[in-house]
């Protein structure tokens, strides 16, 4: 099997970001909230990306910020996939009123833009990391539900699922042993896209001041902290843009590759 060059680049960048996130405290040259220099110092050999609005090393902030952003996005993605896919499969397997209730409920949740829903809920909830992950995961589970239900509806009519039903397998067996393995490839590709969406979502919330709270760093928050600098021509607030965009593009490249690879395995086009 040959990995195309674009997927390799994507894998390398994605891997590097996750590596930096996991080993943040070992890699970062300074502490997260440590004031080490002057305000908005330009990039130098001492501070590779310069310093931020109150003199903290920007590179260290970016690395720790990446840790928070990637942690929140990953947890929320896992939550939305766990919940969304299990409910989606259940709706497809059970059918009838279970399907109706779940599907109409999801329609309702999707009738309000998720940013607006998140803002409404966050106006009364304390803004902490677990609450953020829960809100983002629940809101996004609706999209995963739609996809996994659509995929599973196609699979439940297959002969092998019928065979499993006839030999008396339980509901759980059918979901986890018959449907899940066959629905995995579109779900994995979707997972990449959802992860990116989560990164953008948490960055937006933090930028609005309703996400990760200081002194904890995250990419959206770094933009917020350094936005005044822009007017004086200090590009510190733009550095997270580079990080978010490269992460988004590289995860997209990997997801594209997963999708074409798995669809060619099934005899589809491409590959």
């Amino acid at each position, binding site marked *: 099997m040959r990995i195309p060059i674009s997927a390799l680049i994507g894998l390398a960048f994605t891997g590097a970001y996750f590596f930096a996130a996991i080993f943040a405290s070992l890699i970062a040259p300074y502490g997260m909230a440590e004031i080490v220099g002057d305000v908005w110092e330009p990039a130098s050999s001492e501070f590779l990306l310069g310093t931020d609005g109150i003199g903290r090393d920007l590179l260290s902030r970016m690395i720790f910020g990446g840790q928070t952003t990637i942690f929140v996005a990953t947890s929320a993605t896992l939550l939305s996939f766990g919940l969304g896919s299990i409910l989606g499969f259940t709706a497809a397997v059970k059918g009838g009123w279970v399907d109706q209730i779940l599907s109409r409920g999801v*329609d*309702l*949740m999707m*009738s*309000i*833009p998720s*940013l*607006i*829903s998140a*803002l*409404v*809920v*966050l*106006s*009364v*909830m304390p803004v902490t990391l677990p609450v953020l992950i829960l809100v983002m995961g629940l809101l996004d589970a609706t999209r995963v539900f739609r996809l996994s239900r659509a995929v599973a509806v196609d699979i439940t009519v297959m002969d092998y699922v019928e065979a499993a039903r006839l030999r008396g397998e339980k509901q759980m067996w059918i979901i986890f042993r018959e449907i899940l393995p066959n629905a995995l490839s579109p779900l994995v590709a979707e997972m990449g896209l959802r992860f*990116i969406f989560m990164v*953008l979502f948490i*960055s*937006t919330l933090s*930028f*609005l*001041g*309703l996400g990760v709270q200081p002194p904890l760093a995250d990419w*959206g928050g770094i*933009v917020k902290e350094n*936005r005044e600098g*822009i*007017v*004086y*021509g200090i*590009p510190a*607030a*733009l550095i*997270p*843009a580079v990080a*978010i*965009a490269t992460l*988004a*593009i590289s995860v*997209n490249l990997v997801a594209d590759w997963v999708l074409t690879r798995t669809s060619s395995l099934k005899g589809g086009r491409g590959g």
Partner: protein
Amino acid sequence: MVHPVIKLVAQRIALGLLLLLAASVLIFVGTQILPGDVAQSILGQSATPTSLANLRAELGLNEPPVTRYFNWLGAVLQGDLGKALTNGQDIAEAMGKRLGNTLFLAFCAAVIAVPLAIGLGLIAVRYLNRWPDKLISMVTLATISVPEFLLGYIAIFLLSVQFRVFPSLATVYDGMSLGEQLYAIALPVLVLVLTVLGHMMRMTRAAILNVMQSAYIETAELKGLRPFTVIARHAFPNAIAPVVNVVMLNLAYLVVGVVVVEVVFVYPGMGQYLVDHVSKRDVPVVQACGLVFAAVYIGLNIVADVVSILANPRLRHPK
């Protein structure tokens, strides 16, 4: 007998209104997750029990949630959105001007983005897999991958700090001429256009490509028509339903993008109003804003469905 199209359209509108009603329940419930203690969060930890009780009675918090919901809904239907907790202002009054500003901003962005996206989509299909197509795809992929608030700061950094072409703050007030207003909101409009352009153009391209595989397109090509005529006259009219859907979905997305862009450019609109009051935990304002945003969003979705019903000749001319 009633024409089936009218019946379908009426059904769709009724369904949309039902959805809006359900959304209002959802918004109300969403703000009641922490039971009752809006009063505590307004007055803070040092509040005396008497003042807490007074405020609770004033806000009607002693009544059961169902009663409160129907009181709220009844008032909203009569145009009374309640008073803001933080400054006691009438919400409907404060919101009216801002809603106008927001719609103005979104409208300007839509006027530029929609024709541009469809035009670019047509060009991309005309030069499929050649350099114009690839260039358009690459640029739009880049704009999709950057969140709108960052696009906003990149635009400020380049256009208002480095080259000093446009103002970095979009201040709009009464008495400004239309030209001045348009100049003031140039940057937010640019950012909004960039955020929706990518999706809209990609989905337009996909919708037209889908039609391009039909047999009648091949006929048109074999007749010797110019490629662009084939696309614009034969393929595009049959792709109108999906394209309109895409446009409407993106306009609905525009309504959300506006929230962030307004904060970036300090534009006096609905989004700024909502975000300010979320951080002040001013529940009535948040409910009212949430409801207005949901109504606009659901409304645009209804329009999308109605247009695609009307654009389908099989439904317009039933046998």
